């Protein structure tokens, strides 16, 4: 465990957990976006977003830079005002409510701790701003610092803390006001890979301890989204292009962009779809035929994409009814605990992730790969809501 995480493995004292949890229960609220559009100088950066985050749920918004995910979060915080639509926190319409009156907790990428305040003063800031009584502040500040494993760092200034420790204080500061919702804007992006993994586990643990806390989590990192989120929204060019529970979205992406953005995907253009029953369909690719899941109930006869994840492609048939495909090896890369093989199939790139091989194939050699029909999904080129 990294030094800055020391102390966090200890169980959170029951009295702290119960205290914070009860408070969260009282204030648990969902977030609603109803046709929310945000524009800067006429340029639309968030286009008709309609989305519901249920109370106690973690929803991750992911997408590339400029996709509008941070704008959506800032609209909930009140830092941008929609030109159209409505934002609700619980039953309350907050579209035109000032940020200080929204009762939200916010954690940002660069922590934004107040540098002239000690950790405990940072955590107490929101309580003081809301006019909390001195005994409430005395009780709640150490409670929140204990919750994030930073009780022993209360007297330190931000400059005396590591990145991970600063982020913990930022989380404690956001939780201290017992917000109705917690907004996390790329909270782990500034941390190195090892600390990020640990913090990800800590965030998951925190939500287990505060199950009624509603969280809107913005990230460009699919791993963070898949690990933490109950539901994931994928954004592109200011629009929500996919929304669903993390597993469904991963297994049955509703369009090409979602398939490529959430995890790595092999996408092959296939034709002449014929439904075979049981949610399966047969499609043609070159001279051969594949059977795959038709989760989105695409109509017969059409063209679509066959989506197979790299780790679902095997060198040996996984079952009797599996699909097979012969391709040419382009490159082989050893990546420690796995081997990545790139194949060329009629000009289409196919990636295979498998356990390290004793005798990997040479570039230019033919190779037959197999995949189970249940692990392959037919995906439309354009949008289908998941």
């Amino acid at each position: 465990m990294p030094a800055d995480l020391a102390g966090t493995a200890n169980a959170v004292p029951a009295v702290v957990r119960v205290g914070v949890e009860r408070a969260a229960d009282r204030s648990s609220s969902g977030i609603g976006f109803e046709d929310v559009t945000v524009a800067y100088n006429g340029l639309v950066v968030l286009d008709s977003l309609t989305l519901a985050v249920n109370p106690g749920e973690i929803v991750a918004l992911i997408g590339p830079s400029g996709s509008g995910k941070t704008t959506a979060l800032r609209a909930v915080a009140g830092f941008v005002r929609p030109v159209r639509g409505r934002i609700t926190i619980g039953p309350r319409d907050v579209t035109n409510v000032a940020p200080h009156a929204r009762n939200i907790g916010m954690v940002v990428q660069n922590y934004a701790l107040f540098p002239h305040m000690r950790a405990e003063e940072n955590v107490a800031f929101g309580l003081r701003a809301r006019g909390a009584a001195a005994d409430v502040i005395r009780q709640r500040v150490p409670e929140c610092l204990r919750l994030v494993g930073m009780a022993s760092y209360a007297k330190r200034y931000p400059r005396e803390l590591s990145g991970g420790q600063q982020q913990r204080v930022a989380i404690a500061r956001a939780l201290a006001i017992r917000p109705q919702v917690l907004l996390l804007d790329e909270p782990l992006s500034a941390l190195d890979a090892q600390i990020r993994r640990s913090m990800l586990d800590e965030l998951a643990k925190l939500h287990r301890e505060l199950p009624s806390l509603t969280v809107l989590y913005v990230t460009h990192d699919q791993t963070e989204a898949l690990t933490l989120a109950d539901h994931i929204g994928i954004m592109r060019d200011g629009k929500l292009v996919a929304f669903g529970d993390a597993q469904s979205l991963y297994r049955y992406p509703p369009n090409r962009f979602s398939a490529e953005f959430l995890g790595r995907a092999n996408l092959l253009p296939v034709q002449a779809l014929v439904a075979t029953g049981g949610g399966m369909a047969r499609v043609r690719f070159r001279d051969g035929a594949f059977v795959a899941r038709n989760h989105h109930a695409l109509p017969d006869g059409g063209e679509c994409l066959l989506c197979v994840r790299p780790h679902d492609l095997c060198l040996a048939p996984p079952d009797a009814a599996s699909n097979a495909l012969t391709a040419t090896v382009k490159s082989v890369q050893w990546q420690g605990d796995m081997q990545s093989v790139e194949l060329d199939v009629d000009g289409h790139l196919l990636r295979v992730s498998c356990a390290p091989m004793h005798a990997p194939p040479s570039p230019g050699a033919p190779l037959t790969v197999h995949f189970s029909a249940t692990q392959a999904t037919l995906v439309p080129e354009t949008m289908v809501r998941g």
Partner: protein
Amino acid sequence: MADIALRLPVADERPAVNSWIAPPLLILAALFFFPLALIVRQALTGDGDVLSIAKFASVFASREFHHALGNTLTIALAATAGCLVLGFVLSVLIAFTPFPGSRVIARMIDTFIALPTFLVALAFTFIYGSAGMLNESLKALLHLDLPPVDFLYSQWGVMLSEVTVYTPFVMRPLLAAFSLIEPAQIEVAASLGARPLRIVSRIILPAALPALVAGGSLCLLLTVNEFGIVLFIGAKDVITLPLLIYDKAIQQFDYTTACVIAVVNVALSIALYSLYRFVVAYFGSRRAGLV
């Protein structure tokens, strides 16, 4: 071997460095230290050759010196306080509530610093003077015989002029300090429930304190030595130390008294400059986490 190789060029370069320092030192000595030494000598010897602090004692005991010193400090402190308040408010508005033209105004501050100080006094004479725009308009409007606004030819007029002239000296470092505050800090503070006034007092002000103190110290130094504005305003009872030196030396030909007051003025300036440097160094170290 490595030591020898490293030492030889240093030994060779030392005389060269000294010879480069000599010309500017000579120029500085001729233009600054020599006249300053002459002033100190005149203050200590008067017209004779014997060193004495008798003249200092008599100047320190004189009412006009007390009056001038009091005026100088009162005007300098009040003008500095005015500069700090006005500079802070204007800088916060320009930096955190952007409005059309705010960038142009921020750039104009530099231009303002470059202007001669008496220009403002001249402009104020046109606006607030006895026959200025404001008084003429009010006299016509209210059918008055005497000008109703009569503050310019007093300490207030000097202070207002100095606040106008020296506020940019506070704004410049403040705007630079504000540009270093992360916008996310302000947004997070607002999300935690802080209203704008609390954000200004608890987040922005502490971050700007070094710039505020440094700008204020500089203002104090400049206002203590301000001569043009006080002379141009020409307020009857407003005699400051620089003006008293001018009066003694040019109008009364009492060079010894002028030199004694000049030495006091220089000592005051050096003390204020030391304070300024100390503040800048102290906050600079704190910012780097060293203090």
